[in-house]
């Protein structure tokens, strides 16, 4: 694989993960558990949409960010499986958010030192926003885990359901290896260690138990997603695909 194709793939992994998670969070707008939280969730969604836009614009390859977002199909999407999982209840959304925020946090902390100057620069900016996202979702994991019996049960269920998608966060393919070797990409093994330590500590503080089964779902890097992604994209992409030459 050429370096620039590898960089393209690498950037898509990052961009798609943010875009799909942003789309999921946007579904909450108008439906949050309380007004203030509705506003908070939308802020996170907007930040992630901004990240996706910046990354897709940089990835380019002769295509606009919009073309990349709206005209690729599910097999071409490289987002993490966790991002596309349905919102479920607020516990499910917040747990998904916490697991992803933690991943983003260590990932972009590392990418700040990327030899790719553009990627390094945008990572510095992203990391500030992600630090806030993590603070927000961590607070909620604690409140729900250690709140009422009902909230504890709900978020423990969410953890049991979502845990098997966390292995996918650290999967790598040849693009990742090339990028790592070139000093552009992050070392996912290193990030896995940091992520695991942080996530375990907080879940423990929230009185939650990590499932014992260590089986992990895979496939997003090869465009093998869960069935949920197709519906998400169908909804998201319908206008640009219906009116092919339209400007909006």
């Amino acid at each position: 694989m050429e370096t620039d194709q590898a960089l393209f793939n690498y950037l898509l992994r990052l961009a798609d993960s943010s875009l799909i998670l942003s789309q999921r969070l946007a579904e909450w707008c108008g439906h949050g558990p309380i007004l203030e939280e509705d506003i908070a969730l939308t802020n996170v969604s907007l930040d992630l949409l901004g990240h996706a836009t910046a990354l897709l614009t940089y990835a380019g390859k002769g295509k606009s960010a919009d073309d990349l977002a709206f005209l690729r199909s599910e097999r071409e999407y490289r987002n993490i499986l966790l991002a596309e999982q349905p919102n479920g209840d607020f516990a499910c959304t917040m747990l998904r958010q916490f697991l992803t925020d933690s991943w983003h946090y260590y990932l972009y902390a590392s990418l700040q030192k990327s030899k790719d100057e553009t990627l390094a620069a945008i990572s510095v900016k992203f990391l500030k926003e992600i630090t806030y996202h993590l603070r927000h979702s961590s607070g909620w994991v604690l409140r729900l885990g250690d709140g009422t019996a009902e909230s504890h049960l709900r978020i423990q269920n969410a953890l049991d359901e979502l845990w098997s998608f966390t292995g996918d966060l650290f999967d790598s393919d040849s693009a990742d290896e090339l990028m790592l070797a070139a000093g552009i990409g992050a070392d996912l093994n290193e990030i896995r260690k940091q992520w695991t330590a942080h996530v375990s500590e907080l879940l423990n503080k929230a009185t939650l138990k990590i499932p014992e089964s260590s089986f992990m779902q895979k496939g997003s890097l090869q465009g093998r997603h869960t069935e949920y992604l197709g519906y998400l994209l169908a909804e998201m992409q319908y206008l640009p695909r219906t009116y092919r030459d339209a400007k909006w």
Partner: protein
Amino acid sequence: MILIFNKGMNTNMEKDTQWPLWEIFIQANPGIPHKHVGSLHAADAEMALQNARDVYTRRNEGISIWVVEARFIKASSPEDAGSFFEPANDKVYRHPTFYKVPDGVKYL
């Protein structure tokens, strides 16, 4: 007529909650005081701080936030105004313009 004023009053029998009310103060720029900008609801102080950030600083309105739960604010009432504030009206000697300084004397 006497008005009953109670911000935290919950008239619902079944205990649902929108969380306590907090008052939000924001410093817009360095060197100037924090100013009251409005209120919001939050279950705890950390959440109040985050909500204030999300609600009241989305357009670069601030660099620092104070939050305080509304029930801890003791406010003077309009009936107090006479005894609180009017006595200051005739204490003109507290203001520099009260004093005559000869023309030509500087830096006073």
